[in-house]
């Protein structure tokens, strides 16, 4: 039987939305308050959904200890309590939640091979969330 397992993790980070390809006026018009020069922060929730056959030996789609360990090492340590704009990942890319969601998907897709990755969903606030399925 194929089931989909989802796990949620919290990390806090700051960012500023600003593109070098645009003038100051364009940046202000495009990003509004998100273009404020000192940035602002979010408590991001990343929700990872994996799918696969339920292992009859364990009753699980994947071992949560492995998934939690991977996410802690490769995602949370990388982004938690960071200023996203200062990270290598966003040297040439605006750290919108769309781009952050895609980046996290790529990290999990390449590094956690135990089970099929269905999607990564990222909640920026209670009102906005983004989803990437590869």
């Amino acid at each position, binding site marked *: 039987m194929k089931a989909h*397992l989802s796990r949620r993790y919290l990390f806090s980070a700051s960012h500023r939305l600003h593109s070098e390809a645009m003038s100051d006026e364009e940046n202000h018009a495009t990003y509004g308050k998100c273009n404020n020069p000192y940035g602002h922060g979010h408590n991001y929730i990343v929700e990872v959904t994996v799918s696969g056959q339920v292992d009859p030996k364990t009753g699980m789609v994947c071992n*949560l200890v492995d998934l939690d360990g991977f996410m802690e090492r490769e995602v949370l340590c990388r982004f938690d309590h960071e200023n996203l704009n200062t990270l290598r990942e966003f040297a040439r890319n605006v750290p919108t939640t769309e781009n952050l969601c895609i980046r996290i998907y790529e990290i999990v897709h390449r590094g956690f091979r135990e089970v099929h990755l269905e999607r990564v969903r990222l909640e920026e606030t209670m009102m906005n969330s983004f989803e990437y399925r590869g």
Partner: protein
Amino acid sequence: MVYLTRKAEFAASHYYDNPDLPPEENRRLFGKCNNPNGHGHNYVLEVTVKGEVDPRSGFVIDLKQLKDVMHREVLNAMDHRFLNKEVPEFLHQIPTTENIAIAIWQRLVTKLERAKLHRVRVYETPDLFVDFYGEA
């Protein structure tokens, strides 16, 4: 096609153990979840059905009927129970969130009138949930 979701909560205890494996392997695989005295969760169940809207009633499904089916087939059996000892599906199968979602699907799938069961979602905690769509 319209999708309708009804939520319910149930409180249950369980533990993870495979009797075909030695105790050390069970402890390694399941950690604290292997404690034979069990531990508990407030599970949240979301049942999603799908169907066309009946032009006479405006309903996809009679919610009272869905609620009664959920109580009769699932909640009466699982609420305030020790899953490993009291629910037939889990006498010989580990009551992981995956297996609970599958068991609930199997209890509900043939019992609905008018609408079709689309998804069963079971939250073990707010940060951990399983979806089952009836796929083999």
